[in-house]
C-alpha cells in the first residue's frame, strides 16, 4: 500500500465514518487538511463565519439526526473560539468529533505562533481528547474518537493535530472495530434491579414518570411511549427531553422545573414513586434539594453511573441504556400480566386534573401588543406542529418549550445545560442540512441573535432556508425578569438602547426580512414566510417588553412553591436562594 499524508488519512477516515458534513474554518495549522479536502466531494465542508458557529452547527446537525457532528478548526484562536460550542455539547451530551490544528510537534511548548494548549484548555469540557504525536496512531485515534463520542453517554471528543503529523506519511489502515480496555459502558440493565423496580413501580398509588435528554440520545422514545401507555401513568419531560413523549397526549402533563407547568411540578412534589429515565436531576428541575419529591421512592435509569445519586439519593439505581432497560421492564410487566392499582391511579388522575385546571400557562391576550406566547402558538399552528424548532437562550426559549407541543424526538433543539446565547441560528443551519425537506425555525431573541448573526452569510452560501422567529422585546428579557422580581426593578444593563434594523440586516445578507408590530399580523406573516420554501426569512416580532415567563419557581423554592402569572403580585425569594442562579 502507498503511504499517504496525515491529512489524506484524516479525510479517508471521515469517509469511512460516513461523514456527510464537516463544519469548519481554515488557518495555517490545518492548511494541509484543507488541501486534502480540495480534491474530493464526498465530505462536504461548510465554511462558517466563526468557529463557535461551526460547533453549534455540528451540534444542530447531530441533535436533529442522531449522527455525530464533525468540526475542523485551526490552532490557537481557532480552537479557543470553538471552546464555547464544545462546552455546550459536553453539558448536553452531544456526540461530536472536533479536529483542531496544532503547531508542529517540535514547536509545542515554545509559545509558537498561534499555539495554545488545546488539550489542556478543553480537558474539563470534553468526554475525552487526544494529541496525536505519531502518524502511525492517527487512524486508530480517529476511530477511537468516533467510538467514544457516540457510545455510552455521548459527548464531544477533540483531536489535536500538529501540522507535521498532517504532512507525514503512513500506510492507511482503518480498524474495523475498536476495543478499549478502560472504556466499556454498561448498556444492559441488571435483571434483579429491573425486577425490583417493576415491583416498586406497580405498587405506586401516586406514580410519576420524569424523563430527560437520555431518552432522545438513546432513541428510546418508542419504548418510553409503550411503557407509559401500558401503565397509564402521568409523564413529564425536562427541557432536554421534550418530544420523547408526544406533548399532545393526555398523559403528558407538560415540562417540569423552574418554568414547568403547575401540574407537572405538583405531581412531582406529591408523588409516592418517581420513575426517572435518562434525566440528571438538574438544579433547574429539583429546586431546593431538601424539598424535592419529599414523599417519593425513586427509580433511576441512566447509562452514566455518575448521574445516579449525584444530586438526589435514589432507591433503585439501574445503570443501562434506556431502550434496553425499558424493553426489559415492559417484558416483565407483560409476561406476568402485572397491573397498576387502578383505583389509586384514578384518584391520582383526578387530583392531577384539578391542578391542570389551574391553567398555569394561560396569559392575558392583547389586541394592541404582540404577546410572545401568542407568536409561538401561531408558529405551532402554521407549521402544524411539525417543524424542527431550534432556540436561543432566554425567555423566548421557555415560551417555545411551553407553547410549541413537540410530538416527536429530535424536533426540539436547544442549549439546556450551558444555556449558550447564540446557539440557535447555527444549530438551525445544521438541522436544515440534516433535513433539507423539513421546515426549520429558529426561535430567538434580540440579544441572542446578535451573538451569531454573521452566520446569515453562511446560510446564504449553503442555501439553508430557515425561518428566524425573533421575539424582539428590546431587552435581555430573562435577566430583566430576574431584576424585576429580585432586584426591585433595577434594570441594570438589560435594555438595548440601540438595536439594528433586523429587516435591513436580513436583506443585507441576501435574505427576506419582515417586521411585525400588531397581533393581527402575526399569523399572516408566518404563513407568508413559510410559503417561501427556499428562502431564509427573518421575522422580527416586536413583542410586549414587560412580559414574564410563568410559572416560575424562584431559586431556593420547592417544587410546590410556584409563582403563577398575575396571581402572585408579591414576589419574594428565599435569602439562601439568592446565591443560586
Amino acid at each position, binding site marked *: 500500500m502507498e503511504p499517504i499524508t496525515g491529512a489524506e488519512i484524516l479525510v479517508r477516515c471521515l469517509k469511512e465514518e460516513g461523514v456527510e458534513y464537516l463544519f469548519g474554518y481554515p488557518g495555517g495549522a490545518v492548511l494541509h487538511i484543507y488541501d486534502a479536502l480540495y480534491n474530493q466531494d464526498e465530505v462536504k465542508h461548510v465554511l462558517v463565519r466563526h468557529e463557535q458557529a461551526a460547533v453549534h452547527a455540528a451540534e444542530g446537525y447531530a441533535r436533529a439526526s442522531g449522527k455525530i457532528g464533525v468540526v475542523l478548526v485551526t490552532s490557537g484562536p481557532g480552537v479557543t473560539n470553538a471552546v464555547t460550542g464544545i462546552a455546550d455539547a459536553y453539558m448536553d451530551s452531544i456526540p461530536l468529533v472536533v479536529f483542531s490544528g496544532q503547531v508542529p510537534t517540535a514547536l509545542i511548548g515554545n509559545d509558537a505562533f498561534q499555539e495554545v494548549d488545546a488539550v489542556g484548555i478543553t*480537558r474539563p469540557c470534553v468526554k*475525552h481528547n487526544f494529541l496525536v504525536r505519531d502518524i502511525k496512531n492517527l487512524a486508530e485515534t480517529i476511530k477511537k474518537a468516533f467510538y*467514544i463520542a457516540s457510545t455510552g453517554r455521548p459527548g464531544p471528543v477533540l483531536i489535536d493535530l500538529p501540522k507535521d503529523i498532517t504532512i507525514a506519511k503512513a500506510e492507511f489502515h482503518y480498524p474495523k472495530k475498536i476495543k*478499549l*480496555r*478502560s472504556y466499556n459502558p454498561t448498556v444492559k440493565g441488571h435483571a434483579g434491579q429491573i425486577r425490583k423496580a417493576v415491583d416498586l413501580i406497580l405498587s405506586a398509588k401516586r406514580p410519576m414518570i420524569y424523563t430527560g435528554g437520555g431518552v432522545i440520545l438513546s432513541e428510546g422514545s418508542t419504548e418510553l411511549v409503550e411503557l407509559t401507555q401500558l401503565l397509564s401513568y402521568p409523564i413529564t419531560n425536562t427541557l432536554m427531553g421534550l418530544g420523547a413523549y408526544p406533548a399532545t397526549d393526555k398523559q403528558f402533563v407538560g415540562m417540569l422545573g423552574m418554568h414547568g407547568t403547575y401540574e407537572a411540578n405538583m405531581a412531582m412534589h406529591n408523588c409516592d414513586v418517581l420513575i426517572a429515565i435518562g434525566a440528571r436531576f438538574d438544579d433547574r428541575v429539583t429546586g431546593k434539594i431538601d424539598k424535592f419529591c419529599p414523599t417519593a421512592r425513586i427509580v433511576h435509569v441512566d447509562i452514566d453511573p*455518575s448521574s445516579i445519586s449525584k444530586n438526589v439519593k435514589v432507591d433503585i439505581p439501574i445503570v443501562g441504556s434506556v431502550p434496553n432497560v425499558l424493553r426489559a421492564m415492559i417484558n416483565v410487566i407483560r409476561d406476568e400480566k402485572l397491573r397498576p392499582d387502578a383505583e389509586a391511579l384514578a384518584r391520582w388522575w383526578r387530583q392531577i386534573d384539578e391542578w391542570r385546571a389551574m391553567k398555569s400557562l394561560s396569559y392575558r391576550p392583547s389586541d394592541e401588543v404582540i404577546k410572545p406566547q401568542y407568536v409561538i402558538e401561531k408558529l405551532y399552528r402554521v407549521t402544524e406542529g411539525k417543524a424542527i424548532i431550534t432556540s436561543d437562550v432566554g425567555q423566548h426559549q421557555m415560551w417555545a418549550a411551553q407553547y410549541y407541543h413537540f410530538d416527536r424526538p429530535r424536533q426540539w433543539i436547544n442549549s439546556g445545560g450551558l444555556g449558550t446565547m447564540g446557539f440557535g441560528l447555527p444549530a438551525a443551519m445544521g438541522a436544515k442540512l440534516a433535513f433539507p425537506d423539513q421546515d426549520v425555525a429558529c426561535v430567538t431573541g434580540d440579544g441572542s441573535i446578535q451573538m451569531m448573526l454573521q452566520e446569515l452569510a453562511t446560510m446564504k452560501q449553503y442555501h439553508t432556508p430557515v425561518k428566524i422567529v425573533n421575539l424582539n422585546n428590546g431587552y435581555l428579557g430573562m435577566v430583566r425578569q430576574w431584576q424585576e422580581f429580585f432586584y426591585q426593578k433595577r434594570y441594570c444593563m438589560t435594555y438595548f438602547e440601540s438595536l439594528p434594523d433586523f429587516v435591513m440586516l436580513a436583506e443585507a445578507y441576501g435574505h427576506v426580512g419582515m417586521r411585525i408590530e400588531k397581533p393581527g399580523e402575526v399569523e399572516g406573516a408566518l404563513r407568508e414566510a413559510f410559503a417561501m420554501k427556499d428562502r431564509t426569512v427573518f421575522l422580527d416580532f416586536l413583542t410586549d417588553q414587560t412580559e414574564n415567563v410563568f410559572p416560575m419557581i424562584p431559586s431556593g423554592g420547592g417544587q410546590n412553591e410556584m409563582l403563577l402569572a398575575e396571581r402572585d403580585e408579591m414576589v419574594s425569594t428565599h435569602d439562601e436562594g439568592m446565591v443560586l442562579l
Partner: protein
Amino acid sequence: MNNDRHLISILMENEAGALSRVANLFSARGYNIESLTVAPTDDPTLSRLTLVTCGNEQIIEQIIKQLNKLIDVVKLIDLSETDAIERELMLVKTKASGEQRAEMMRLAEIFGGRILDVTEATYTIELTGAGNKLDNFLRAVEKDAILEVVRSGATGIARGQKALRA
C-alpha cells in the same frame, strides 16, 4: 457528616495527560486531594496512581464514579473499604548534635527508621509506614530539631489474594 479519609488506588493508561485528567477532576469538582503518588507498573503501558482524599459517603461515591468515568482509568479500588496495607516513605533531616544525637538515633530505631546520611550536626532518616505512624514520629521529635521533611504520599495494596490488574 462524617469526613472519612479514603485511600483510592487507580490503574490507568500510562499516557501523557492521564495524570492531569485525575488532578483536573479533583479541582474542577471541588474534591480535595491530600496526597497523590504515581508511577508506571510492571506493565509499562499502565500506571498506578494512589491518592488520599476525604469526604462523606456521598462525595466518595461520586469521586469513585467520576474517576471510573475517565477514559484513561482502567480500574480502581477504594483500599479503605478492604483489608489493605498502606505505606508511605518519609525522609527527615534532623539536628543531631550533643545530647540530641543519641536521642535521635533511639527514636529512629523505635520507629523502625534507618539513618541514611550523617554529618556532625545532622541525621537524615528514612521511615516507612502508614501515614499516622510517620505523623507520630514527627510528633515525638522535638519540633525545632526538624530541618526538613519529605513525604512521598501514601500508597497501598490489598491484603490476601486479591490483585488489581487490567
